[in-house]
């Protein structure tokens, strides 16, 4: 009996073996998250400006694709798109839950943010919410806090929804974003973004 078992394993071992620890890998995969450390090597490899996004423990890098009038378009690994102005997310596409301020208001938003409150229409997906009135209230503005020249805290309020959610932006002395914390959806988790501009 033992000879038989041994011969099977010997036969298997003298051939090319593809050992699959499938179940263990799957469990490991379920509990592990994508983790990225931004090093100088990474910066020089990427060459372009990029952002590091952290959402629910997972991380991803989006690369700067376009920049017009201070509005930056960042592209993700699966062609997800993210438009920002000085760290404020104006619109996303291709994410599980997308977010978008009315694009006709972007110009006026860029004149108000980060100095004052403003109003616009906001659209969300999953669940869908189209063109709901939103007031984005400036809650606090502090200087020289935790490496930020300016730290701005806004609160996003949707009409009829009594659950405002905060958004925090850390800007340098030129008004460029260093990092931000913003929710894309009142039911979602906070999206953390670190900005790495390089020219």
């Amino acid at each position, binding site marked *: 009996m033992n000879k038989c078992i041994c011969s099977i394993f010997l036969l298997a071992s003298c*051939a090319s*073996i593809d050992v*699959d620890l499938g*179940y263990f890998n799957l469990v490991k995969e379920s509990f592990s998250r994508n983790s990225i450390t931004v090093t100088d090597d990474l910066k020089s490899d990427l060459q372009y400006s990029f952002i590091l996004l952290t959402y629910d423990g997972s991380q991803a890098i989006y690369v700067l694709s376009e920049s017009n009038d201070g509005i930056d378009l960042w592209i993700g690994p699966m062609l997800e798109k993210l438009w920002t102005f000085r760290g404020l997310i104006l619109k996303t596409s291709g994410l599980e839950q997308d977010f978008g301020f009315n694009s006709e208001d972007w110009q006026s938003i860029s004149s108000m943010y980060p100095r004052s409150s403003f109003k616009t229409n906001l659209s969300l997906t999953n669940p869908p919410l189209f063109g709901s009135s939103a007031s984005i209230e400036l809650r606090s503005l502090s200087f020289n806090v935790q490496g930020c020249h300016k730290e701005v805290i806004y609160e996003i309020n949707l009409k009829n929804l009594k659950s405002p959610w905060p958004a925090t932006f850390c800007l340098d002395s030129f008004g460029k974003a260093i990092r931000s914390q913003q929710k894309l959806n009142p039911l979602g988790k906070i999206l953390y973004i670190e900005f790495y501009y390089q020219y």
Partner: protein
Amino acid sequence: MLKVRYYFLLCLSISVNADIYDYIYPYSGPSFSNYGSLGLIQNPNARFLSEGNMAFSWSHNDPYLRGSLVAYPFNWLEAAFQYTDVNNELYSPVPDFSGSQSLKDKSFDVKIRLLEESTYSPQIALGLRDLGGTGRFSSEYIVANKQIGPNLDISFGIGWANLNRNNIQNPLIKISDRFKEREQPADLGGKLNVGTFFSGDAGLFGGIEYSIPHLKGTKFKIELDGTNYLTESNPLNQDSRINYGFVYPVSKSFLVKLSYTRGNTLNFGFSYAIDLGSKNPRNIVKTPIVKLPNSSVIQDITQKSEENVYKAALLYLSREGISLQKASVLEEELHVVYSQSKFRSPALSAGRTINILDHIAPKKIKTIKVSEINAGMGMFSAKIDRRTLRRYRDLESPVVLGSYLQTDPYIFKGQKHVFNPEVSYPISFLTIGPDLVSQIGGPDGFFFGDLRLRSDSEILFSRNLSLITSVSAGLYDNMGDLKLASDSVLPHVRTDIVKYIKASRGFAIKRLQLNYYNQFAPSLFYKFSAGIFESMFSGVGAEFLYRPYHQNYGLGIDLWQVRQRDYNQMFGVHDYKTITGHLNFYYQEPSTNILFHLKGGRYLAKDSGFTFNISRVFRSSFRVGAFFSQTDISEEEFGEGSFDKGFYFWVPLDIFSHRHFKKTFGWGLRPVTRDGAQSLTYGYPLWGVTDPSTDHRFRRRLSDFYE
């Protein structure tokens, strides 16, 4: 005119603002009752989760502890299986049989939607509780639900048997006197006592479910309890018929609940529901096709010689996990034969192969044809013009592509090709993982488990010849106290399960099966097998399958000479031997993807009869199904349960991963394991091996083609 404008704007504003309710009342789906299926607190309701969902629900409502597994094969069907721990009753009055263990009651419930809710009409459902069991909680009901506004759901119903608390006269008496009295079944259980349905006194029940705004979907429930606790074997005190409680959604899937019932009992529970049926239920981004950024450079090389085409195809396909077996260039057509064990969807494997070949093939190639083989048997061929391929790739329109994509059956045997790369056999695949052998709900104790380390391997000696093995070694178990002995009057082909479990707690061989596969014609497959087929039987046998590629049916026959194995699951055998085999008819209903499998023949205990198996396969490849068998043995010979029946589900594990692979977790349950109507469970049945060999399967997953 102004009024018209006003109404237009009003309508527009309503549609724009309507979705805000999804944010004010998040997770506002239905919730589970103490009986395990969707409902209020004790009462059922007419709500359903969407098809492809599965749920586990647990509740403690003294003296009952209840765990339920609930499946939604369709939007209109709820099927639930429950174990109830009845704390105020012993499993058996004979202490030697079950000690001081409390009673464990199994029950099966179904609920069918009769009318879907509309703006003005309610949703109506008909349900049957505790079907075919001991009848301890059996009841029938018709219930209606109406959503009023975004946060209020009202339900009202009429019930019979265990749901007849306020004893109104049965309205069905007007139709027939048969409904006047309800007789208690006096048999071995496990049968559908259809004759007693909706008979005896009836009762009314109802209640409301209110979603509290801005409390993250928290619900308040209040109901007029329809349960007649006096009909239960140990009647319970009921101080009030009004029950009330709260449900809090920790997440969309996980709900916890707390309620107060009978005016004297605080109870709590939780439920977890998961969508397993949609194409990508966990919203995990799958690994995309390997990109070839230097496509034009590769094409410059491949246009110099056909040899370069073959070598480039071999290299780039292997990076995708696709193994090129043979290839030819015939005038303007490149034909590649490949095998793969990575992609579940034939459209995905063919799509990736064709798209990679399109990136590397020289310009003179106008048509690409690929043929997939499995176990040396041809599964299908897919052929497409390259210009069409690119046009619809740019338009991201695989469905339109379908009309230009030619798919056909394929026979591998005897085909001549120019490029025949050598494969160095034998090739081995080894998978190591945990395994749990369990015994649930017996008189010795509720749960006995044996955690094992299991290794499954496949050794390919050639394309057609393989050896599959499954061995395991015990890590930890509590099987020592298991002592239930078989009382079956039939040959003990399954009921000696306890002896098998106890004797194989160390090292055991579950399978050691040698297979030879081939095909007579493109849709006619056969297989010879010998060795250890399963835990309890070894032997030799053969299987034949006719599966016409462009049809949705299959016809098969299998025949086996088997011998019962030693309890220790090594190489020894017992004296018992038999010939078993079946004629099989399969039909895959194309619109719902329901597989009907009817098989008739001789079973392991030498009884003859048929098994009907029905299952539904969802977009993710999640499968849920049920079966029953009838053979030429009497109910007394069969024993408890009267006839063999059960349910099962298979969960594709790749839905939890970003990778593509074919692994599946399967779990099935027979309410009672007996010896009648038991089939041999051999490895790799031909229906599964030839799964890609049907046009219906390819076309159904055509949207995978460019992924």
